[in-house]
């Protein structure tokens, strides 16, 4: 009896387990397909049908926007990646018919286009036509960041993204705005409470997770897959730019709160210093950008941006950071050519390099070179009279774009950690006396330069 029971129990258990497994499989499959949106389920069998659907949707969309004279350009990373491989051929035969649907039929959920805000009037007619053509559309609006820095202005919300959906494909139209630093900006995509979260699989979008900053692209009209479309003239550099495009808005609200606590210095001296610092920063940015050297706001200048969205009037210099791997020997002559003589040079390329240039009327431009280690990044300091070396340690960081004194510049994305490493947890309190050898909270003694190297590593002009 016992033996039979054991067998039966075993069989029953196996059966239940099997049933449960089947149920789980079904549920998993169902869940996945639902998550991708019913319209986006990937049925392998209808692959070719899917391919041509994408092409048709893109064609319809291009027809729609050209009937309203709206100049859009293609920024879809997938398609631009494909286009880039054949760019020579596409450039040379702008009108040639293509034998097969190579680009617009490639499997994907979205096709992404860009629109420059100032090139169209927000006509409602577009959306009515779109609806007539069968598109469903979604508009994502938000605050205008160009007014964010202003005290108590409330403008109309501006459109940041549009999504046009037709059949199983969707067009993502990213709206680009021109900003004061003469660059293009697109906003983040944020869904409001009442919006349909399942309209499209939002997390597969290529744009909108963060705001982004771009240079104004040169465009090229090409014909691909028998569709005429504008693309960035150099797709590969656009794709490269895209991978580092994350933009940080200045923390205007916090800056306002800061000025409530510590009213801004509006004296004539402060006004003058800010003006000089701004023009020095513009000159430095122009020089380094021409050389193709990536730099970011460091030390006091970075603190000024992060804390008060402005130059700190009592800081007396402008501080930039550069990774030592981006160092170029041309930097010094380029600055001298721009009218900024070298004031001092400490350290050497292998260790603790630091350059200082003399700007107009005592405003100094300090360039610190940063050395990357496995778990931290550091830059060095040198005391001229004693030959002492210092080391300033920072946690690892990446670079983001921001807008500062009408300039598009880099700052560390992890700005808080960067500023805290440098200025300690009390960075919100303005300090007028600052000793670069002892005040920073991340300073370490780093020995002393050997006497015989002094001529090389301590140069003062």
């Amino acid at each position, binding site marked *: 009896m016992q*033996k039979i029971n*054991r*067998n039966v129990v*075993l*069989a029953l*258990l*196996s059966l239940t*387990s*099997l049933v*449960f*497994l089947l149920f*789980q*499989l079904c*549920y*998993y499959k169902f*869940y*996945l397909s639902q*998550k991708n949106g019913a319209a986006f389920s990937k049925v392998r069998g209808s692959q070719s049908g899917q391919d041509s659907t994408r092409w048709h949707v893109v064609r319809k969309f291009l027809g729609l926007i050209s009937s309203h004279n709206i100049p859009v350009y293609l920024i879809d990373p997938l398609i631009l990646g494909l286009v880039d491989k054949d760019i020579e051929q596409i450039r040379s035969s702008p009108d040639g018919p293509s034998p097969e649907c190579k680009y617009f039929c490639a499997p994907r959920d979205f096709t992404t286009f860009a629109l420059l805000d*100032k090139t169209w*009037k927000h*006509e*409602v*007619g577009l959306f009515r036509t779109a609806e007539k053509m069968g598109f469903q559309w979604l508009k994502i609006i*938000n605050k*205008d960041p*160009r*007014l964010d*820095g*202003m*005290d*108590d*202005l*409330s*403008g*109309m919300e501006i459109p940041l993204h549009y999504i046009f959906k037709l059949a199983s494909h969707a067009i993502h139209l990213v709206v680009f705005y*021109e*900003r*004061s*630093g*003469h660059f293009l900006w697109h906003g983040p*995509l*944020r*869904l*409001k*409470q009442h919006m349909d*979260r399942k309209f499209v699989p*939002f*997390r597969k979008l290529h744009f*909108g*997770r963060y705001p982004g900053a771009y240079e104004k692209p040169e465009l090229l009209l090409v014909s691909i897959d028998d569709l005429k479309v504008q693309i960035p003239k150099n797709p590969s550099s656009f794709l490269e730019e895209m991978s580092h495009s994350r933009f940080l808005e200045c923390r205007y609200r916090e800056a306002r709160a800061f000025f409530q606590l510590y009213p801004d210095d*509006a004296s*004539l001296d402060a*006004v003058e210093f*800010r*003006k000089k610092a701004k023009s020095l920063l513009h000159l430095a940015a122009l020089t380094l950008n021409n050389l193709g050297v990536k730099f970011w706001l460091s030390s006091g200048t970075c603190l000024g941006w992060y804390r008060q969205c402005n130059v700190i009037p009592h800081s007396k210099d402008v501080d930039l950071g550069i990774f030592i791997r981006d160092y170029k020997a041309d930097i010094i002559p380029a600055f001298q050519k721009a009218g900024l003589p070298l004031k001092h040079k400490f350290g050497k390329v292998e260790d603790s390099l630091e350059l200082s240039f003399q700007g107009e009327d005592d405003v100094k431009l300090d360039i610190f070179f940063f050395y990357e280690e496995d778990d931290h990044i550091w830059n060095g300091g040198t005391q001229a009279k004693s030959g002492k070396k210092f080391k300033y340690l920072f946690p690892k960081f990446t670079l983001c774009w921001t807008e500062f004194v*009408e300039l598009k510049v880099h700052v560390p994305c992890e700005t808080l950690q960067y500023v805290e490493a440098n200025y300690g947890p009390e960075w919100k309190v303005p300090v007028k006396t600052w000793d670069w050898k002892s005040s920073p909270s991340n300073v370490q003694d780093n020995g002393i330069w050997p006497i015989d190297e002094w001529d090389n590593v301590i140069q003062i002009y």
Partner: protein
Amino acid sequence: MGEWKPNPAVKPHKKRSWYLAWKYKLMNQRALRKLCQTGAVLFLLVTVIVNIKLILDTRRAAYEEEEEAAQDYDDEMLNVEVPRHPVNNKKVLDVEVYSSRSKVYVAVDGTTVLEDEAREQGRGIHVIILNQATGHVMAKRVFDTYSPHEDEAMVLFLNMVARGRILIFTIKDEGSFHLKETAKNVLKSLGSQVAPFLSWRDMWTFVGKKGGEVYGEKHAKSPALSTWGDPVLLKTEVHLTSVEDAECHWPDTELNRRRKRFCSKVEGYGSVCSCKDPTPIEFNPDPLKDNKVFDVPVAVIAGNRPNYLYRMLRSLLSAQGVNPQMITVFIDGYYEEPMDVVELFGLSGIQHTPISIKNARVSQHYKASLTATFNLFPDAKFAVVLEEDLDISVDFFSFLSQSIHLLEEDESLYCISAWNDQGYEHTAEDPSLLYRVETMPGLGWVLRKSLYKDELEPKWPTPEKLWDWDMWMRMPEQRKGRECIIPDISRSYHFGIVGLNMNGYFHEAYFKKHKFNTVPNVQLKNVESLRKDNYETEIHRLLGEAEVLDHGKNPCEDSFVPDTEGRVYVMFIRMEQEADFTTWTQLAKCLHIWDLDVRGNHKGLWRLFRKKNHFLVVGVPASPYSSKKPSSVTPIYMEPPAKEEGAVAVPAVAAAEQT
């Protein structure tokens, strides 16, 4: 595993079914059975593991999605939109209207829509217009019919109100003294029984529909001249109509949708809301050929004077070469009606939380508006600055397009302004003529971005300084000797009568007779001569050909200038040093031009027209042009008037024309 050993003592069954046979067989095949059992156990284990993994996967996927959707794409702020007016399906409104000597109020469905108990304010007839379908307040006005002409304004307003609207009237203090027959008849035609007999210090309330029924009227007679009538409180019900009945049936276009939205919210804009042939809200003026200011942003500085803004935007949008996309209206305060006007014209508007008070508030509003303008249009090198109480000339943009290159190239220029302070009907003549002046007229002007960003913005007066922004801009520290270009005939017209520094008397005296260009496409004359050095050559040429007037005559007399046309005349006045304007002020006074402070001068020289002749005034010896004075001529000196009169003029200087 020992338990699973085959049992040799198994009892054979009587009925040996195939199952038992199979089982028996299995039992006899020990190894096979053992394998099966192990297999089953293994299978069980595997399914359990796979099951757990699947559960985990599904959960993780679900969690990830929620996480990502929530973190990356959700708006961090809960934008719960609360409808401003609760949806009201009620068909009947309870209206309460109160009239008394010191207080009036109107409540609609328990919500107070008007309450005025301020002392020495709000005297006269208060009028409220409600939408007959929604019950929303569409207009609120008070007409001080104790004072003259206010009844005419009321008649004008009531005539503009669309048929079917609900009108509510109530008197505070006194409303009959200057309520003339015409106005009384209009009130009678609205259904009021009492209006024709309203008299001194009567209290009166009335609710009625324009062109329809009367919902109620109450009246309390004043028993004697020295006392007021008893307070009256009228409680009545108003029946709402359907939305369709309250709207006009215009063709469904984009424009008419805007119109519909506007007309269902506000009243008092006349024909823009009439059902038959409404006045257009899109103007499509001729484009300008080679328009150099097409991409220049236009900032319209506005407060809460929506009727002014309406008039202003109409004229602006009708000017040739206007680019509506570049226009931004900056409203000082969160007022709804000005925003409605902006939306009616399809323009963009920005509201600004008021900072500080009086002049400083205006000044802070200017700063915020200018900064925002250059933020919104980062490529712009200039901005056109306008105010809500200006008419804009049809050739405003043409005028700027022809002159803007000077502002770009000539460092000695401070601005281009459309306004000539001294350009009155009797002193301006030539629409193609431009001047250089040392003063900053404002009232429709072009600002260079570099001037604003590098000089003005960083040291703009802070909120606690009660300065006029324009006075501040005129200070030598800011102007630094630079000049503005102005036309002889102004390209803007200041029509505002109510404002911070403005009243009817002041407007009548200094603004009403201002000349305003109405000729389209004026070709400006000799624009290059406005450059710094060229202008000196031009002035010397003019002075060279000018005839010296008879300095023995009284310059205030009309006969001082001969009855000619198209000649150039010069007179010399005494001006001891650069800041000595004694004689000039007296001359300006008798010529009936701007005399509250010095305007329109260039190195001690003023240029205007008298009797269609170009008329030059040179201050001797301060002006470098004094050398042109023949030695025989003695500069005219005019005494400042006696003290009392002077005392009147002084405070007025502070109240310059800015709103």
